[in-house]
């Protein structure tokens, strides 16, 4: 039996700043995981990843990251993605120190 597909988001690092970005349903790159499009269908996820990888002038290293649905949008299934969403734990730098970007 095929394994059940775990939901995913498309994530990458921004080309210039290098910080973590997520793909939204309306094809924007957001810095805020809550805004990311949660992909629950495997074929759709693969397709969205291909689309993201084609945007090589905007991001680097796009991949599918496992998420769980939460009340405020996708939540990381693994601690690595939790750190990517937050920033380092030894210094108040990175996303945790920035205003959520809605642009």
């Amino acid at each position, binding site marked *: 039996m095929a394994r059940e597909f775990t939901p995913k988001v498309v994530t990458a*690092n921004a*080309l*210039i*700043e*290098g*910080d*973590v970005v997520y793909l939204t349903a309306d094809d924007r790159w957001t810095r805020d995981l809550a805004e990311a499009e949660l992909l629950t269908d495997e074929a759709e996820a693969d397709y969205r990843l291909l689309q993201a990888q084609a945007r*090589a*002038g905007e991001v*680097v*290293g796009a991949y599918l990251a496992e998420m769980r649905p939460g009340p405020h949008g996708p939540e990381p*299934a*693994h*601690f*690595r993605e939790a*750190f*990517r969403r937050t*920033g*380092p*734990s*030894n*210094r108040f*730098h*990175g*996303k945790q120190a920035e205003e959520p970007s809605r642009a």
Partner: protein
Amino acid sequence: MYRHTEFDRAFLAERNRQFRAQVERRIAGHLTEDEFKPLRLMNGLYLQLHAYMLRVAIPYGSLDPAKMRQLAYLAERWDKGYGHFTTRTNIQYNWPKLSDVPDMLDALAQVGMHAIQTSGNTIRNVTSDHFAGAAADEIEDPRPVAELIRQWSTDHPEFQFLPRKFKIAVIASETDRAVMKSHDVGLRLVGRAGARGFQVWVGGGMGRTPMVARLLRDFLPEADLLPYLEAVLASYNRLGRRDNKYKARIKITVHEQGLDAFRDAVEAEFPRRRAVFTGIDRDRLDEIRARFVTPRLPERDAAAYCSARDADPVFRAWSDTNVTPHRHADHGIVTISLKAHGATPGDASAEQMRLVADLAERYGHGDIRVSHAQNLVLPHVALSDIPAVHAALRAAGLGTGNIGLASDIIACPGMDYCALATARSIPVAQGIATRLEELKIEHEVGPLQIKISGCINACGHHHVGHIGILGLDRAGVENYQITLGGDPSETTAIGTRTGPGFAYDEIVPAVERLIFAYLDLRESPEETFLETFNRLGMAPFKSALYDGEARAHAAE
């Protein structure tokens, strides 16, 4: 300190011009990431978890005040006001923007620095003894040899695509302060019948298959160094495996081929290499030696040092751990701890870097070193000036007196920064150091080296830690394995695993149990943790770690 020539400057300027154009083409969309990635890595630019990371080479860990001030300037102008000194004696900037990196490299070139070969399957930054030129026990300063190797290996066309990265260390004393036997090639300068030469060690390394280097050549005459190194590299380039990156380092080549077979390959290649060296390498070494300005140390009265030690217990405790005897008895080697309890091992702010530059200029003959243990060193300070140096360091948060003690922890960046990491290491180091400070026991515990890596690649040297900690991802949770009995010194040894790992919130108490077990087990205060472990073996420490009742013994 080595002064760069006009040729070095022209080379760097051209290389930076090329990279600036490559960055422009990447941003303009003319280069794909697949095309650009090897180009940026050749210039030390990685992409990490939260940002790019620029790794700047500090050849054999030597800096002067101008270089240190420029590193501070980069931290402030293009990063977040600090830099991270690494176990390879490099510095890493954790937050540069891609578009700023060409300017950063130009700023580095102004002081003769660069990020070339800090990545990729090339010969990496050559490391050395951080006490070079000052240690009482060395036969000569090993850094001119390290510089010769740096010049030879930089952009060496034959060795840009080795099977895997390649690390070389050079020392000149029996005491090994550079973890020499954990390098792909380790060189120890020795004398024999009035002639200089090298012991050549090969195939050391950490990573997922840790190995202690083996003796390839007992005495290599100094004049044969570069042709012999070329023969080693060429043999490795030919025999090293390219089918599996985990089996690609020279340690695996030597292990699989056998030391004798590998030696035969090197010796067969060596005459061909020597035939094409015309002696220019030896002339070059003479030039480099002339360009290494060793400070002339004036005679100084040490009375002020002794009276400060008598009068000030804080100074006395700090100087016990952080001042090492200099070859000139009226001078000392000052190690500046970048391990304040609870701080990130190896991090220094721009202000701290500038202070160290100022102190080096005022008291230290302009000489600064980075140690593989992620500390800074002022190698030549008159004893009578050390109280003033200490006072200035304390005021800047750099006065921690813990060199060689349990809170002088090596930790890689781990999952707080590194894209390869499987777990965090910095907060574990912070947690252990903070706990030691609460318990106020590390001076009683004495010499104890704790080393933490956040993945199997072992940048945090955990294999050679007296207590080694390896952070792993076990079923989606951070888990920490402990090894005991590792030894980074000339009696190099790889630690042994104690058993099952510990969760993130269990690892600091586990280390605490080990330390208390040692205090119970040692024969006398003079017997170090490592000596006790070597005498008694694993069993009592294992019991302290895993037996439930041992937990009750932990302080509180």
